[in-house]
Structures are given as C-alpha cells and as structure tokens.
C-alpha cells in the first residue's frame, strides 16, 4: 500500500494589535453610589479592568472587528452637558403606541426628564431614571440589578455595569395591567462622548405592560460610544411587550448586553428595530425559566453605507413546555454588513419545548454582505426546534414584473423590499412602530 503524502498545515495566528488599546476611563469615573449599587459597580469595574477589548479571535467577535475604534478618545459627559448640544427632534417624543403615553423619560447626556401619569403612580408603578431610583426606590433596584446580565460576560457588560451614568427603572406591581404604553428615549448627541446606560425592568406576577425604548442621536463628525445593559424580569403569569428602536448616528459604536428572564406562564413580545450606528454588537438573550413561559423575538434591520450591525441572539429553554419564536429580517445596501448569530439552547429536562428561529436577509448592493449563522444545542428529549437562514438578492424577475405594470425601477425595488419585511410588520401590534419602520425603509431606499 502506498503511503499517503503528509500534509503539514502551519497555522499563522492573526495579528491583533488592539489588545494593547484600552479605554481611558478611570476609577474616578464611577458614579457615586451606595449600598448594593456601589458594590455592584465595584465588581463591574474589577471585571472591566480584568478584561481586554474583545478581538476577532473570540468566537462571538469573529465577524466584528473593533480595531478601528478610537477607544481612548471617549469621555463621559459632565452633568448638564446636554445644554451644549442640539436638542432632540420633537418627533421622537410622539407616542409610537396608542394615542398617548402612560409615562415618558428622556435621558440626555448629563441629565434627564421624567414624566409619569399620576394614575399609574397611584397604582404603584415606578417609572423613573436610574439615578432617581437609586435614591428613592433602592429596594426595586436591588430586585433586578445584576440579576440577568453578568458583568463578567464581556468587556462592554462590565463597562456599562461600572459606569452607567443613567438608565431607566420600571416596576409594575403585581396584577397591575398597564394599558398606556411607557416610552423612554436615550438621546445621545455629542462627538467623542461615551453614553452608558442601564435599563432595569421588573414586571411583577400577573402584571402586564408595554414599554418602548429608543436610542437615537444625530450623526456627528467624530466617533462616539454607547454601551448598555438591559435587564428584565417577567414574573409568573406576567406579560411584557418590549419594543427597542435603535437609530444612533453613524458615528456611534454601539454595544449592548440584554437579557430577559421569563418566569412560569410569563409572556414576552420583544421587538427590535435597528437602522443606526456605525457598528453594533448586540447580545440579546431570552431565558425561559418557568414552565409555560413564552417569548417571541422579532427583529428588523436595514443598513447602508459602511454600517456594521451584529446581533447575537440566544433563546434559552430552561424549563419544560416553554416556547420561543424568533424572526429577524434585514436588508443591506452600499458596503454595509450584518451578522446574525442565533442559538436555541434546550437544557436537560426542558421537555416539550418548542423553539423556532429564522433569519432572512436581502442584499441590495453588490458590496453589501450578510452573515447568517443559526444554531441549535439540545440536551432534552421530546422537543421541537427548527431554524432557517437565508441570504438573497433582489431578483430581476419580480422587478421586471412590477415595471411591466408601469411602476418605475426605484419604486419597484421599494415594493419588493417592503414585501420582504411584511412578515415582520405583521408581528408588530403597533401602528406607530410599523410606520416608523416604514419610514426607515423609504429613507434607506432613497
């Protein structure tokens, strides 16, 4: 028998220069706090100092390269800094859900504005900024702070945990059904600034609420940073509709760690819309921890120019009879890039779970690229888990068909793209949010 020739493969390690770079923040930047918040921040700061900036050798960051980020240029805004910046467009204050708000919070660099309907306050609803909550409702903050997102899970989680200047705290008491939606806006103007936020939401047993959170800014001439944590608990039999809209200016490096924990028979409707930022790395995790818990995640993204959006989703089935359903759809133009990496995890013993995930992309220009990586990890028996991922182009035949009915090229392309997004629109129970997505499509299609 002939001996096969030996093949020697020499792996050349990719050189990563970013390891040396780090943020210029110091311990003095940690906002003053007491009690549990203080110890949480100290722990987060330790984790932040210990971890280096993630690079492409890490699996989660393989497709998202931070080497071009001017890490040491970001400064935290001083108190009252917003006075020097352009004010927020009035349009953002309009209700996106129903006719009026139950409450609205606007977070500015170094300031905030809080509004809550008196009838909701009377019912025991707490909807305020993180700073105020630390003083007035420490017991609520303690119920959730650090409970779903671990500051050790990443550099940016640690950063946000240690330095979050502000954020939103929402508490809906047991069996309170809040129909009027709550709305918060993180408005982050300013170049070279670091906007750091922390959202803490607790929907107590049997309660229900609708909450819309937006992050937005104008586009500035030099880079800025947002790092955020979103921690949410949906307790037994509770229900939450949570809408997140991200329209950062294209100078913003945006990093978030979000995790929602849903208890027994709890229900979550989680909607994402992302059209902004220079680069985004978002970790969104759904933990279904009690029997009968259900969660649906619907994502819409549209990138252009040189934008880079990376959504990393995880559907964790940690109890039997849990249901999750994820649909993310994206369109890409120019030289932009999207990454969706999803995982359905079914823990041992989480029988009779039903998990679904799908990611669909439409690439509108030659230079754009979408990566779609579904994943399943199933340790239980008797489960139903399915997934699908597609990346396609704008087909010539539908465009020809539409044009043959007198519809000009540009409009024909828009019609096809709108049709592509329609399954996502159908999942959004709010006309205002659908209209916002529709406007985003019109604007991006030009």
């Amino acid at each position, binding site marked *: 028998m002939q001996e096969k020739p030996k093949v020697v493969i020499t792996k050349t390690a990719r050189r990563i220069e970013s390891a040396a770079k780090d943020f210029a923040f110091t311990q003095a930047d940690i906002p003053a706090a007491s009690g549990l918040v203080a110890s949480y921040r100290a722990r987060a700061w330790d984790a932040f100092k210990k971890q280096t900036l993630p690079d492409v050798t890490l699996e989660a960051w393989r497709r998202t390269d931070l080497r071009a980020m001017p890490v040491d240029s970001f400064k935290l805004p001083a108190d009252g800094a917003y006075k020097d910046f352009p004010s927020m467009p009035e349009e953002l204050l309009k209700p996106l859900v129903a006719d009026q708000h139950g409450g609205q919070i606007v977070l500015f660099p170094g300031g905030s504005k809080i509004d809550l309907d008196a009838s909701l306050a009377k019912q025991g609803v707490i909807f305020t900024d993180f700073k105020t909550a630390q003083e007035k409702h420490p017991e609520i903050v303690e119920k959730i702070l650090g409970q779903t997102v671990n500051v050790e899970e990443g550099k940016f989680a640690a950063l946000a945990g240690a330095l979050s200047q502000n954020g939103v705290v929402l508490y809906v008491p047991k069996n309170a059904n809040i129909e009027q939606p709550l709305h918060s806006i993180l408005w982050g103007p300013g170049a070279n600034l670091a906007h750091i936020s922390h959202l803490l939401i607790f929907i107590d047993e049997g309660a229900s609420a609708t909450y819309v959170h937006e992050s937005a800014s104008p586009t500035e001439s030099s880079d800025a940073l947002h790092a955020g944590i979103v921690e949410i608990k949906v307790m037994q039999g509770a229900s939450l509709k949570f809408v997140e809209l991200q329209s950062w200016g294209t100078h913003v490096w945006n990093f978030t760690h979000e995790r929602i924990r849903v208890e027994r028979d709890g229900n979550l409707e989680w909607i994402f819309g992302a059209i902004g930022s220079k680069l985004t790395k978002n970790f969104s995790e759904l933990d279904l921890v009690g029997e009968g818990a259900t969660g649906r995640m619907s994502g819409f993204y549209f990138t252009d120019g040189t934008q880079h959006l990376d959504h990393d989703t995880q559907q964790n089935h940690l109890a039997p009879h849990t249901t999750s359903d994820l649909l993310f759809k994206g369109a890409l133009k120019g030289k932009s890039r999207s990454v969706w990496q999803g995982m359905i995890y079914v823990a041992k013993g989480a029988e009779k779970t039903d998990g679904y995930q799908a990611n669909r992309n439409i690439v509108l220009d030659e230079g754009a690229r979408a990566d779609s990586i579904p994943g399943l990890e199933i340790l239980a028996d008797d489960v139903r888990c399915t997934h699908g991922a597609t990346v396609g182009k704008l*087909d*010539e*035949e*539908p465009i*020809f*068909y*539409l*044009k*043959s*009915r*007198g*519809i*000009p*090229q540009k*409009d*024909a392309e828009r*019609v*096809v793209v*709108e*049709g*592509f*997004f*329609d*399954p996502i629109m159908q999942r959004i129970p709010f006309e205002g949010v659908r209209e916002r997505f529709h406007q985003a499509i019109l604007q991006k299609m030009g």
Partner: protein
Amino acid sequence: MSELVIKDLHVNVADKEILQGVNLTVKQGEIHAIMGPNGTGKTTLASTLMGHPSYVVTKGEVLFKGQNILELEVDERSRLGLFLAFQYPVSIPGVTVANFLRTALNARRRAINKEDKGIPVPEFRKMLKEQMDLLKMDPAFAGRYLNDGFSGGEKKRAEILQMAALKPEIAILDETDSGLDIDALRVVSDGVNALMGPHLGVLVITHYQRLLNYIKPQFVHVMMNGKIVESGGPDLALSLEEHGYDWIREKSEETA
C-alpha cells in the same frame, strides 16, 4: 387610433437569433392571434415587446403611438398603454394584490402629475370590487400576496384583473390558456371579452386553438422559426386544428 407596428424585428437570446424578422401590425379594437408550435419564438416576441432585459433586439423597430418603444424603459411602455399578461406570472411575497394594484395605478397618475396624492381609497376599492366581481373573484383575493401560492387559474385571473385595472390600449396575452381547466378558461375569456371594445387591441399568443373558441380573433398568424409565415382570418386557426402545422411548414420551406 393607437397601433402597434412591428417592423423586421430580429431578437437574440443568449447570442442565438430567435426572432428572424417579424412584421405585424395590431390596431386598437382588433384581436390578433399568433399560433405556432413550441419553440418558434412566440414568448420571445411577447417578452421583447414588453422589454425584458434578457432579450436583445439586433434589428428592426417597434412603433407604438408613433414612438419607437424599443428605446423606452419597461415601465414607460406600460404607462404608454402596452400590457403583457404573463404565461408564468412571478410571485411577489409580502405585497397584496390590492396594494400592488394601487401602486401601479398611482405610478400612472404620478407620471402625469408628480404632485398627485394617489387614487382615493374609496374610489380604488369600488373599482377593485367591480373588476373582481366581473372575474368572479373572491373579495379575500385582494388581501392575498400577489401570485404567492396562487393556483394556475388564480394567477391568470389576477393577470386579467390587472389588465382591467390598468386599461391598456394594446394587450398581449401570452399563453393565457396554459394550465387552465375549461371552467377557468371560460372565466378568463369572459373577462377578456368584457374588456374588448374599440379602445383595446389584443394580441393572443397560443399553442392551442382551444382558446380561440372563447376569444375570437379577426386575424390569425402562424409563427415558425422566428417568423410569421402565414396570416389569415379565423378559418386559418380551424384548418390548423384540422391539419396540424406540417402543411404550413412545407409551404414555408418551399417559399424559402
């Protein structure tokens, strides 16, 4: 009166000459049928007239309302009054029949007046309902995604519905009978006949004589090897049914 005049049209598909000099004139108010065996260029002619990018005109011209439409974009040809009912209409997922038709009608209005606000919703609904009733279509049809999961008959009805809504001056029906059972064929033909009149000229492309029992042409043409080789009245279609295409093939070869 509008007329479509095809002069010495030569067309290549993937560098192969499919149409080898077609001459034909269709006027408003007339019904013409083009018959012929498979692969003789009938669909190529239809697609070329509409402006499909895969079909390359190497010679000849097509005049419609005095303009050489070969120089026009696909959508401009449509707005000028040309319509093609496709043999295989593609599906447009996520776009409802109603939404699509409204977009098409508004494109016409905006081409005339850029500031047009679009067709008022009540007016559009009324028009759509009338046309759908005429084609015996379930009202729920308007809310379905265009051609997505449609049966063969539904697709062809949707094509005729679009024709009714867009009111072309010259319509080309490409194998509109293919894939239809006799009931569907009757409904579709009734729809076409209801639209017929002095303002509509129709070019019916078909493989079978069957359709011509329902849509009655005044002029019948036979196409072979990329050319029209025989033209006549309705009786030409009948003799084709009786004798097949061989006698024409022989005759045309003799002439050649």
